[in-house]
């Protein structure tokens, strides 16, 4: 069979489709976005009526997936690592309810924070929820493990977490598909109270979960995703999790490593494999992309056993992603070097597109705020976060989805008045609405600037859940209609927009200014598509 050239993300998507998926629920987030996009674009998925619309946020996505699982069908939830923070309440409790139809959660981590606020390690969440975690090391494994995750989930009646990192999610290689499976029929849990987490029921469910832990480990010992390859050189034993395994192999001719290597792809990690490696090696090196999750577990608090090297002792840098040379240095192998980068090199940071509506919005805001002391603009996650950089330098915070409005509320409470929140339309429906409700209930003297470009821009222009209803939502949340203003962020409206902002900055209550102009990228694509369709219709 012909190999498909797939990104890690795409391999996961195809794996899910082939496993008999009925629905994918997700919110865009780099590096996970492409999974849902692949399913949305897939002809097979369309034929099979696999639902794939974007959700308002990762929590609603997780919950709907639990709903589909409750009804007996296979569901996949996709998010970036910080998205799991948003989904956490539902995620952790889905381990207590258990799964009926296969329930698989995909979290894509971003070591080195290529486009994220942190490099948190999703494996912690798997451990926290006490569910199996699968961590592929290449694109074929990403495909195979996704199929296996659904099998595992239905075998044990538990959600399963798959963890990938950017370098696998956004890397392409050949993948062989296996046969495509049928979807499940609608079928409810035999115990219709299983998902009711009243304490009396939850306690029972929790004990069931505890009882499954040994079985999870036994499965990890026989699935083939954890393998111990004994080496002849016993001075070092290496534990390589997920992608780290590749970097290790890269450093050895014909991928022949003289040391014993424990390749980890499924958690909880089987004790007997670790014991065997530990007992037959003088020292241990743990290689993992992300946090020292396994290293810390292995070391224990007192670190009284054999020497265990990794991120915690500096053998591997504590922060940032792994690469072949970091691994080479950790093992004490010679490292190749290229040429010195010339000093004339300049950074080329990402910037807002030519003609972006956010530029006009922030130019107006900058001018309006000129009469106030600086440091009062709380912003959020999206393309508009780039306004922190030159030449705009408009914003002073970006912490997590929706934090703009709520931080403005808190800062205003502290006396920083007026406080300004700048948030996008997709971010607003993701987690800004509840913050605005707080602001209204507190009558906070804040100005909320909703940058409505009718899209989820930074991740590539996916549909925004706001769907042009921002005005109604804001009204519905109780903002005084006289202080809901709509402006069009264009150069020619600059003076008028500044005037409106000044007025609303003076108002000592909640003001919302909706700055509405379609994203220049999605507009361009839409026009191109229209022209193409017109051309084809004409033919």
């Amino acid at each position, binding site marked *: 069979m012909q190999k498909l050239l797939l990104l890690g993300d795409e391999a996961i998507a195809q794996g899910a489709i082939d496993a008999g998926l009925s629905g994918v629920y997700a919110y865009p987030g*780099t590096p996970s976005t492409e999974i849902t996009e692949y399913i949305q674009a897939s002809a097979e998925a369309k034929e099979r009526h696999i639902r794939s619309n974007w959700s308002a946020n990762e929590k609603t996505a997780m919950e709907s997936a639990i709903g589909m699982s409750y009804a007996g069908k296979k569901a996949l939830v996709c998010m970036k690592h910080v998205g799991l923070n948003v989904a956490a309440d539902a995620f952790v409790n889905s381990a207590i309810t258990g799964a009926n139809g296969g329930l698989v959660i995909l979290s894509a981590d971003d070591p080195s924070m290529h486009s994220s606020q942190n490099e948190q390690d999703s494996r912690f969440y798997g451990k926290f929820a006490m569910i199996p975690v699968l961590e592929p090391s290449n694109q074929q494994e990403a495909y195979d493990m996704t199929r296996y995750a659904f099998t595992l989930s239905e075998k044990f009646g538990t959600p399963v977490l798959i963890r990938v990192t950017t*370098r696998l999610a956004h890397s392409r290689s050949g993948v062989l598909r296996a046969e495509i499976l049928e979807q499940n029929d609608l079928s409810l849990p035999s115990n219709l109270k299983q998902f009711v987490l009243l304490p009396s029921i939850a306690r029972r469910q929790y004990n069931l979960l505890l009882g499954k832990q040994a079985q999870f480990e036994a499965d990890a010992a026989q699935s083939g995703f954890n393998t111990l390859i004994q080496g002849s050189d016993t001075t070092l034993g290496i534990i390589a999790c997920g992608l780290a395994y590749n970097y290790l192999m*890269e450093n050895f001719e014909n991928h022949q490593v003289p040391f014993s290597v424990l390749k980890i792809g499924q958690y909880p990690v089987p004790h007997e494999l670790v014991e065997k490696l530990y007992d037959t090696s003088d020292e241990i090196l743990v290689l993992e992309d992300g946090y020292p999750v396994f290293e810390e577990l292995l070391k224990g608090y007192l670190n009284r056993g054999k020497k265990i090297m990794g991120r915690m002792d500096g053998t591997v840098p504590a922060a940032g992603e792994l690469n072949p040379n970091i691994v080479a240095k950790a093992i004490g192998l010679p490292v190749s070097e*290229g040429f010195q980068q010339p000093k*004339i090199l300049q950074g080329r940071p990402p910037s807002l597109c030519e003609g972006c509506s956010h530029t006009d919005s922030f130019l107006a805001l900058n001018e309006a705020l000129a009469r106030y002391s600086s440091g009062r603009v709380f912003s959020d996650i999206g393309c508009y976060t780039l306004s922190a950089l030159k030449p705009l330098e408009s914003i002073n915070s970006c912490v997590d989805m929706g934090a703009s409005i709520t931080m403005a509320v808190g800062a205003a409470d502290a006396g920083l008045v007026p406080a300004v929140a700048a948030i996008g339309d997709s971010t607003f429906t993701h987690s800004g609405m509840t913050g605005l409700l707080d602001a209204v209930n507190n009558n906070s003297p804040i100005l909320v600037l909703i940058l409505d470009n009718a899209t989820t821009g930074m991740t590539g222009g996916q549909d925004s859940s706001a769907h042009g209803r921002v005005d109604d939502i804001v009204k519905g949340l109780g903002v005084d209609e006289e202080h809901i203003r709509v402006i069009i962020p264009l150069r020619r409206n600059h003076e008028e927009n500044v005037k409106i902002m000044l007025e609303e900055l003076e108002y000592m209550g909640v003001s919302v200014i909706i700055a509405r102009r379609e994203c220049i990228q999605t507009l361009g694509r839409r026009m191109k598509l229209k022209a193409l369709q017109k051309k084809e219709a004409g033919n």
Partner: protein
Amino acid sequence: MKKDIILAGVGGQGILTIATVIGTAALIEGLQLKQAEVHGMSQRGGDVQSHLRISSNPIASDLIPEGKADLVISVEPMESLRYVNMLNKETGWIITSMNPFVNIPEYPDLEVILNEIWNLPHNVTIDAEKVAKEQGSIKAANIVVLGAALPYLGIKPESFEKAIESIFAKKGDDMVKMNLKALHAGRQLADKRG
């Protein structure tokens, strides 16, 4: 055979198209392939790069080890210099367009950039935009650069032609022809030093 290639440029310059052409050509010849990229900055004028690894044997790492890249192929001169630390000092080739993309205020003097490139032991530079315009469209500048890199890729020119035919097919016959011309022009007109 193995070729470890860093592709470089600014978002929107068609770096990933080059990667797709090389990747498709490699698959046509039955080679193994891994291609890593960073998404998201392509619309926003930031630097983009892709690690493209081709081999007759299974490939382990998605990332090319520092100092081991056989080629840096760049659609922008300053961007080509950003990856000289990845280049194999003895055998690595740098192949780049000479046309600067100036979207930052402190963009260095082009003379200085070109001299840095010409100081490297194995370099190929080409006025890609000029050549592309002569072939029919300035947008084919990326394919012109690819043409200049052809002799160093270890893949038959016919495989590249087949790759271009299949990738640009849905854009029409004219597009395919133009890109093939751009590919050949790049190969003919590159200024090779070293």
